[in-house]
């Protein structure tokens, strides 16, 4: 009698195990399209058969996972985030600088062409007006580009602010999930944490490591800890009066540390690299070009004379330093008001002399830009060319990171992805197991009934 009752217990446990299998397979199928979901498995454990009755027991469902793969995915997400942030920002800046209106190099060429025409007929007021208009057009173009670069940097700055806020929210979510995971072992919580960690990596880079206590710890490249167990620090974008842009600070209680330059990987680092690297370089190059143009042209212009025979006057308003030159560059207002001041003649020569114009024209072929290494035209071309090269490289890096990310995604899917055919098979398998156990219980129940009837 007692053995038959044990068999009933075995049947009940077996039926429960098969039902768990059905539930897990159904849950897997239901989450076939859920982002970050890892398929789960039911772990059936055979009970010891001594002295007579064994049976089966289902352990808590577990998920298919590979911690190393998850770590590589986070690294790849960081690389993809960085390149993915830089490429569109660079392409946008390239379009702002070279896509709208006449390019800077074309305006430089137009100035040379205007001076060349004036050199043929220095006293022609129309040609003088046109040459001065070309110089003004060039100065205006530089100022427009300087504004465009500043706008692109401001846009990046706003994105940095958004990313830091988003990263802080995810860090808090990770800390909360760490706490929940220690209380509840549901694999779905780990899936959510993996997904959040990947999103954080894509945003700010850094590295996540699961400690022996099962809690994920997030460390920034400079060693700063963003998430530690159930505690999360935060990232804040704080305005920096020195630069006019925001710096990124790791804030933990009263501790506050600037991590702007130490971030590597992630969209945040990509935006910072763009704002403080590529775009800042473009702004500095444009300033230098404006300064080189102003100083070299003015030096020649001042050495020569206008139609009135007076020399020593500038063509562009003199600039004190390269910083901000592209914004400040302008044709001397007195020259605009009186085109006769355009120094087309050599000092002491008559108004029909064109040696001043030729001397200005000679600047065209002289390496007066970029510290004496480039002509002004080449520097103007190189300004956009360098940006284009960086955008091209960033796009290639994005493609490369995407391939790696896709590959790791394939590996993850191979391990953790849900396959409906497989789940349907499992469903049928556990359904058959449950049917068998139901029949087994029915048989044992019959046996018990017979026994009881004969008593």
């Amino acid at each position, binding site marked *: 009698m007692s053995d038959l009752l044990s068999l009933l217990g075995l049947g009940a446990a077996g039926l429960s195990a098969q039902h768990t299998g059905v539930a897990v397979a159904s849950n897997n199928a239901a989450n*076939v*399209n859920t982002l970050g979901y890892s398929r789960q498995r039911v772990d059936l454990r055979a009970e010891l058969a001594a002295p007579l009755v064994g049976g089966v027991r289902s352990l808590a469902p577990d998920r298919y996972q590979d911690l190393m793969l998850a770590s590589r995915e986070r690294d790849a997400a960081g690389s993809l985030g960085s390149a993915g942030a830089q490429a569109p920002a*660079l*392409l946008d800046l*390239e*379009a702002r600088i*070279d896509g709208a209106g006449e390019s800077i*190099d*074309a305006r*430089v*060429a*137009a100035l*040379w*062409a*205007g*001076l*060349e*025409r004036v*050199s*043929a*007929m*220095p*006293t*022609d*007021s*129309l*040609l003088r007006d046109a040459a001065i208009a070309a110089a003004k057009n060039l100065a205006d173009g530089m100022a427009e580009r300087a504004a465009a670069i500043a706008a692109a940097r401001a846009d990046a700055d706003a994105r940095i602010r958004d990313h830091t806020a988003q990263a802080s929210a995810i860090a808090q979510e990770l800390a909360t999930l760490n706490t929940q995971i220690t209380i509840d072992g549901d694999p779905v919580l780990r899936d959510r944490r993996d997904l959040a960690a990947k999103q954080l990596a894509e945003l700010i880079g850094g590295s996540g490591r699961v400690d022996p206590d099962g809690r994920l710890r997030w460390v920034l490249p400079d060693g700063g800890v963003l998430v530690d167990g159930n505690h999360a620090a935060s990232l804040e974008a704080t305005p920096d009066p020195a630069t006019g842009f925001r710096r990124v600070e790791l804030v933990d209680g009263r501790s506050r540390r600037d991590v702007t330059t130490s971030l590597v990987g992630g969209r945040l680092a990509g935006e910072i690299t763009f704002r403080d690297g590529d775009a800042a370089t473009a702004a500095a190059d444009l300033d230098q070009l404006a300064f080189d143009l102003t100083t070299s042209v003015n030096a020649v212009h001042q050495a020569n004379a206008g*139609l009135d025979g007076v020399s020593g006057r500038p063509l562009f308003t003199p600039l004190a330093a390269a910083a901000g030159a592209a914004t400040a560059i302008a044709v001397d207002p007195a020259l605009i008001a009186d085109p006769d001041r355009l120094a087309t003649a050599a000092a002491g*020569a*008559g*108004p*029909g*002399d*064109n040696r001043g114009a*030729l001397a200005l024209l000679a600047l*065209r*072929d002289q390496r007066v830009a970029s510290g004496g290494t480039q002509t002004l*035209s*080449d520097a103007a*071309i190189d300004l*956009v*060319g360098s*940006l*284009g*090269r960086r*955008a*091209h490289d960033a*796009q290639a890096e994005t493609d490369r990171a995407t391939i790696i990310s*896709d590959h790791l995604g*394939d*590996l993850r*899917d*191979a391990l953790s*992805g*849900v*396959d*409906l*055919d*497989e789940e*349907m098979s499992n469903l049928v398998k556990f359904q058959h197991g449950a049917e068998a156990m139901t029949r087994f219980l029915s048989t044992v129940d019959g046996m018990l009934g017979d026994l009881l009837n004969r008593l």
Partner: protein
Amino acid sequence: MRITAHHLLERSAGHIGAAQTDIAKLSDQVSSGIKVRHASDDPVAWIQARREQVRAAISQGRGDAIGLGSDQLAETERALGTIGGVLSEARQIAVQAANANYVAGDRAKLELQVAGLFSVALASANSRNAAGEYVLAGAQGLVAPFDAAGVFVGDASRRDLEAGEGASASATLSGSALTSAVAGGVDVLPALGRLVTALGANDVPSIQAAIDELDAAHEQVSQARGEVGSMMAVFQDADAFRVELEHSLVGRIASLTEVDIIDAATDLAQRTQALEASQAVNGRLATLLSPGRR
């Protein structure tokens, strides 16, 4: 490797997306004819093309300058031609006036005729270009280079222009070429003036002396015209070379930035086939993996 149905569908969709991106890019290239629009498309080609575009723009400016210089020389040549013609005519009158049969009244009539010629020569010597600049004034282009007596008051400087990349040539001739500043030369217009005076004074020896002087002046003007002609030829050659250079630059820019239509069309056909294949595979997968068939 374990491949899930979900993964198969996602990969298939990814292939379709990639093929569509390729087709969009190629379609854009085929329809616009441009393959390098931005520096990021092909930085090396873009930079080279921009350098050539700058050269082309500068060359166009140079072309305009050469045109203006040539106009200036043409104006100079026209003025010298007129002066040369005047001198020839004046010499004939001088020969006529030197005839012993002529009386004072005859020479007085000829004086009026030569005075008129002098005015024509002086006006020509003080010719201006389209901008109002005196063509023979040297660097003093805003002031008439010859005074009422035909004395040169300009300067001897010439204006050089760029004739090509790294080359220059004179584009003006100073009125000093019509003065005794030229080796063995005479003051051309004053010589004409002296003939007028001699005719008025009925001074036959001076008239005879003027004939030799007019011969020398005519020769001097002819030499100046020859020099101007040489300058014009230099600019004509320079302009022809410049036009050739611009054609070459246009071709080079096109080869750097424009699409090879045959290659692009072939690529487009291949990518279109790839897209169709991807779509077919995707459709087949969708059918194969649909829940109804499981």
